[in-house]
C-alpha cells in the first residue's frame, strides 16, 4: 500500500510547550489507523496539523505525494481531507438536513448549488448520510436543539458528506451510547476500502474493533506503531501509557462514565438551548 499522508519532522510548539515533537509518521492509503496516547500526548494537535487548522512550527506534511504544509484548511478540505471535532461542531441555527447539505456543497460535482432547486436535490441526496448515522428522523430539527450524542452523529455525517479520501475523527466514540458506538462502527466499516480513516480515541475497545494499525503517542513523540494486539502486548506502551492492567481497567471505567453522562445528555442539552 502507498502512503497517502506522510509526516516528516513535524513539530508544533505553543510557546514553551511542545505539543508535537519531530514526528515522523505515515498513514497508508485505505488504512484504519488509530492514534492513542495519554491526555496531552498531542493527538488532537496532530489532527489539527494534518487538517490544516494549525500551521506546524517546523516539518513537512505530504498528502498524496504533494507538499501541503502551507496549504490552507479550505484547500486541504477540497483535496479530500475531512474531519470531525472533539467537541462536535455544527451550524446550530440551521436544520440538520441543511447542515449536511452545506457540508456536501463544496464537494459535490453538481454546479449552481446556490439555486433553490439544485440545493434541494443536494439536500435530498444527503439524506443517505443521515440514515447512515441514524439521525434521518431529525432532518428538520434545528441542529442547535440536538443532544450531545445526536450532534456528534451529525458532525460525523457532515464529514461523510464531503466524500473524503482521508477522514480524521477526533474521539468519535466519546459521549456516545453503546448503541451509538455500534452504529458508528457499522458506518465506518461501510466506508469504501480506499478511504483512509485516522481516529484519535481513548476507548481501546473501540480502537481494537476498528483499527488495523495503532500508533501510540507520548509527549508529542512516537512511542510505538503496530497492530492492536502488538500494542497491547508491547512492554514500552504498557509502562508509559497503559501502566498495568489496573490502569487499563480505569480507562474502561472512564469510557463508561462518558456513557452515563450521555444518558443525562438530552435533558441538559434541551435546557441549555
Amino acid at each position, binding site marked *: 500500500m502507498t502512503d497517502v499522508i506522510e509526516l516528516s519532522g513535524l513539530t508544533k510548539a505553543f510557546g514553551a510547550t511542545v505539543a508535537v515533537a519531530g514526528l515522523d509518521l505515515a498513514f497508508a492509503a485505505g488504512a484504519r489507523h488509530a492514534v492513542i496516547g495519554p491526555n496531552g500526548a498531542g493527538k488532537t494537535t496532530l489532527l489539527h496539523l494534518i*487538517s490544516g*487548522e494549525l500551521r506546524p512550527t517546523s516539518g513537512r506534511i505530504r498528502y498524496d505525494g504533494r507538499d501541503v504544509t502551507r496549504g*490552507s*484548511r*479550505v484547500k486541504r*478540505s*477540497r483535496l479530500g481531507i*475531512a*474531519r470531525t*471535532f472533539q467537541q462536535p*461542531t*455544527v*451550524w*446550530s*441555527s*440551521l*436544520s440538520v*438536513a*441543511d*447542515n449536511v447539505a*452545506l*457540508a456536501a*456543497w*463544496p*464537494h459535490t460535482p453538481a454546479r449552481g*448549488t*446556490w*439555486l*433553490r*432547486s439544485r*440545493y*434541494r436535490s443536494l*439536500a*435530498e441526496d444527503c*439524506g443517505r448520510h443521515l440514515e447512515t448515522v441514524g439521525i*434521518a*428522523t*431529525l*432532518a*428538520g*430539527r434545528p441542529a442547535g*436543539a440536538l443532544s450531545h450524542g445526536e450532534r456528534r452523529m451529525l458532525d460525523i455525517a*457532515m464529514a461523510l458528506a*464531503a466524500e473524503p479520501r482521508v477522514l480524521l475523527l477526533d474521539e468519535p466514540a466519546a459521549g456516545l451510547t453503546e448503541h451509538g458506538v455500534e452504529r458508528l462502527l457499522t458506518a465506518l466499516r461501510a466506508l469504501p476500502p480506499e478511504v483512509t480513516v485516522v481516529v484519535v480515541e481513548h476507548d481501546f475497545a473501540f480502537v481494537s474493533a476498528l483499527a488495523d494499525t495503532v500508533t501510540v503517542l507520548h509527549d508529542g513523540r512516537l512511542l510505538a506503531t503496530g497492530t492492536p494486539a502488538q500494542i497491547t502486548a508491547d512492554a514500552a506502551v504498557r509502562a508509559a501509557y497503559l501502566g498495568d492492567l489496573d490502569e487499563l481497567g480505569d480507562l474502561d471505567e472512564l469510557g463508561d462514565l462518558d456513557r452515563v453522562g450521555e444518558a443525562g445528555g*438530552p*435533558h441538559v442539552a*434541551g*435546557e441549555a*438551548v
Partner: protein
Amino acid sequence: MTAPTTPATPSQDPEEASVSQDSEVLAAAAAPIAGPIRSSLASQLGQRLALRLRLRVAGPAVALGVLLLGAPSMFDDYGIGLLSKALALGVLAVSVSVLAGYAGLPTMGQAAPFLVGAYTAGIMGQHGQDLGVVQLLCGTATGAGFAAVTGLVATRTRGVAFLMTTLAIGELAVAVAGRWHSLTGGTDGMYGIPPVRPLPGTTQLDTDGAVYWYVLGACAAVVALVWRVLRSPVGKLLLAGRDHEARMRSAGHPVAVHRWLAYVAAGALAGFGGVLMCTVNAYVSPADGGFATSALVLLAVVLGGATSPLGALFGAGLIVATRDWLSGPFPGHGPLLLGLMFIVAVYALPDGIAGLRIRVPRRWPGRQRLARFRRPQGPRRPDQPERPERRAGSA
C-alpha cells in the same frame, strides 16, 4: 387536519399546536409553487420553512403593509416626507441587517456607501440625468464599488476590530466628502438637485406624495429581492459562516470570499438607499453619511431583530418617527426620547420587533422536550392521507 394533529399535546402546548397547524397549511399552500415535493425530507424542510415564515414575517409584514399603503391618506405632507425618509434609511438598515444578522459583521460605517450612492444621484441630477431608474442603478454600482475596495480591508477583521475599521472607513468617507469641493460642494452640501423622472416617458415627481410612492415602490422591490436571496441557499451559507466559521472552512467553503461578497452586496444596497435619500431630500451633505447615521441604523437593526429585513425597515421607521415626529411637542429632546426607546426596547424585546411572537413560547421551559417528542412520533402519521400531494410525491 386539526383533529389528528392535536391529541398529543393540546393541553400542554396550545401555542405550539396552532403554530404547527398553520405551518402545515402554509407548507401545503407552498407546494404547488415550490414544485412537487419529492421526499419526506423535503416535506420536513418545507414545514420548517413555513413555520419560520409565519413567525418571522406575519407580524411586521401586516403592520408595515397597513401603515405604508394607508399613509398618504393618514398624514400631512410633512409626515409623508418623513415616511419617505424613513424608507430610504430603511434600505440602509436592511443592508446593515444583512451584514450584522446574516454575515455576523456588525458595522458602524454602512453610511459611507450610502453617502456614495447619494452623491452619485446628486451629481447625475445636476448634470441633467434625472431618470430615477438610471440613478438607482448607478448609485447601486458605485456603492458596491466602494464596498468592494474597502471590504478588502474591512472583512479581514472580526468583532470589535471590524466595528472600528468600518467606523474609520465611514469617518474617512465623510472627511473626503467635506474636502472635495469641486465634486461634492464640500460641507455646504449639494443644492439644486432636480426632481427625478422614475421611468422614461414619465413626468417629474413634483409632490411629496408622488415621491413617496416612487420611494415605496423602489424600496419594496429591493427588499423583496433581498428577502428572496436571504431565503435561498445563499442565506444559509451566510448563517453557517456566522454560526461557526472554522467549521465552514473545514467543510471547504471559502468563508473569506463569502464575507467579502456579503459586504459588497450590502454596500450596493446602501448605495441604493442613498439614491432614494437624495431623491427625497433633493439635497446631499456629508452629514447625511456621518457616524450618527451609521449608529442610528445599527440601532434600528437591533430594534427590529437582526436577521429580519422587515424588522430592520420597521426599526428605521420607529427611529425617524421618534426623532423627528414624536419630538415635535418636546423640542430639542429627540435624542432623549430615542435613548428612552432603546432602553425599553433592549429590556422588553431582546429579539427585536420581529422576535415578538416567538419569544413567549421559547421562554417556556418544557418547550424543547415537547418539540423533541412531537415531530417524529405518533400524531404525524394518521393525518398523512389528508395530504395526498405529499404522499404521492414520496412514492
